[in-house]
């Protein structure tokens, strides 16, 4: 199945001289949840804004469902819904009116039943006649999502969707995103919360200094770049590492009371051999712990090792 978004050799240099994106190539699969990670100023929002038509690219092409975002902007933009990072709302409008406005703006005729469904799914139905200025920050965030969904987009961009929202709302949003994916909507989200990407994303792209440095399925990325750590709490502290354990490159911790073994996430076969060798050497342990690196560890290692 062809990608729903195709980005080729995309570059953006602002008038100030700042290069925000360099030769970015990216294919977004239809119906997936794609998380775009990266530190502040990495170029995530610029990338999203170019796809949505808010920022003009300096070089390269972007196609949404085969439609060029510059030449065939009507067709491409009508497929996209955008939830921006900041809470930009028409303060004096009611929830219902602003959602109706968004649907019309994106070229769709009135459909009160659809808007009702969207507002109910976001628990905004009871607030439909309230002015946006009277709503809480979390509710305003929901209004922005309702506006983005009002015209039934096939692609939804969520730029830092849960920044500054409470845990309950964050969970609600995750549930909504999964529901939308179930309905066939492709979702691209940027986030600072690694746990958000870890929780929801099918694939992950990491942007650093305007370059897309990694694009990988989440599970594969964690397996490929993740590390595991085994800690053995010994019955008797060791003064020195016994001979015969060189193959495992063990590290003594806590004055010889613990032994630490770091290994690749997909290399678990060496553990039984290690435990067998320790038994042979008479090194006993009273407890053991294992730890797998999180996506956050991988993200930090990826972005911090780049020049």
């Amino acid at each position, binding site marked *: 199945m062809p990608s729903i978004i195709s980005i080729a050799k995309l570059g953006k240099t602002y008038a100030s001289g700042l290069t925000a994106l360099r030769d970015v190539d990216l294919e977004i699969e239809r119906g997936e949840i794609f998380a775009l990670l990266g530190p502040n100023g990495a170029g995530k929002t610029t990338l999203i804004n170019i796809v949505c038509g*808010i920022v003009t690219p300096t070089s390269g092409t972007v196609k949404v469902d085969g439609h060029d975002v510059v030449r065939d902007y009507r067709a491409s933009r009508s497929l996209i819904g955008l939830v921006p990072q900041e809470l930009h709302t028409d303060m004096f409008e009611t929830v219902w009116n602003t959602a109706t406005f968004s649907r019309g703006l*994106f070229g769709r*005729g009135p459909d009160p039943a659809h808007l009702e469904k969207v507002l109910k799914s976001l628990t905004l139905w009871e607030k439909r006649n309230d002015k946006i200025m009277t709503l809480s920050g979390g509710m305003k965030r929901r209004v922005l999502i309702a506006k983005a969904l009002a015209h039934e987009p096939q692609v939804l961009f969520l730029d830092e969707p849960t920044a500054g929202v409470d845990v309950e709302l964050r969970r609600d949003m995750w549930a909504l995103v999964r529901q939308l994916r179930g309905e066939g909507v492709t979702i691209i989200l940027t986030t600072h919360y690694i746990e958000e990407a870890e929780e929801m994303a099918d694939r992950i792209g990491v942007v650093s200094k305007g370059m897309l440095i990694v694009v990988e399925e989440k599970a594969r990325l964690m397996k490929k770049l993740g590390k595991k750590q085994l800690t053995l709490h010994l019955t008797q502290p060791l003064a020195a590492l016994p001979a015969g354990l060189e193959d495992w490159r063990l590290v003594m911790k806590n004055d010889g009371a613990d032994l630490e073994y770091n290994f690749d996430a997909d290399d678990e076969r060496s553990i039984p051999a290690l435990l067998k060798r320790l038994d042979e050497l008479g090194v006993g342990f009273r407890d053991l712990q294992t730890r797998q690196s999180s996506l956050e560890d991988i993200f930090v290692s990826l972005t911090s090792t780049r020049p």
Partner: protein
Amino acid sequence: MNRHGILAIYRFEMARFKRTLWQSLVTPVLTTSLYFVVFGAAIGPRMNQIDGVTYGAFIVPGLIMLSVFTESLNNASFGIYLPKFTGTIYELLSAPISPLEIVLAYVGAAATKSVILGLVILATANLFVPVHVEHPFWMMGFLVLTATTFCLFGFVIGIWAKGFEQLSFIPMLIVTPLTFLGGAFYSIDMLPPAWRTFSLFNPVVYLISGFRWCFYGAADVSFGASLAMTLVFFAACLGLAAWIFRTGYRLKS
């Protein structure tokens, strides 16, 4: 054409007009009434007739134009500046709507407000002085054309402005003085010859003169010249708006 998009913006802007009815309609009507009290009732009787028209009736077209200019600029500039200020412009820029359609919707809404305002002021003026409209068709046409032109100009100002101060800079410091010096309250024939010639470089003279011709069949300059000047101004504003959207000036980075 994104018909639904144009209608959505148009309705949104008209809803804003209703929300701010006091500021948009009542204030200009009150101000105009005060002009009639001062210039029409207090000073008017002491003035000679101009082109066979009483002074009170003579100033009606100028007063309508004064309000239409000011409100067109304010409505249209604020209409597009507000989304820039609040950040909601992102939605407009990411929507499948062409620059021409955006201009049509915003300027259409602002011009509708201005035409309503002009007609309300005309009705208000009728309460103070008997107003005769000799060419009602041309009067409506000229009112719509002038309102649309100034709304376009206001739209351009709204995009250009980086703050509220810049937003009111051109209407307050350029358009209002030009209107007062453009024959709103007098005929330029009443001026000394040198000032009269100088006044002909003021584009507002042509707008007010043309509109006055629609009422009384007489004007400072020919109606053809007025119409041509208004059309030139309209084309210039349209060209400027088109350039802004083509280049993304102060809209896109």
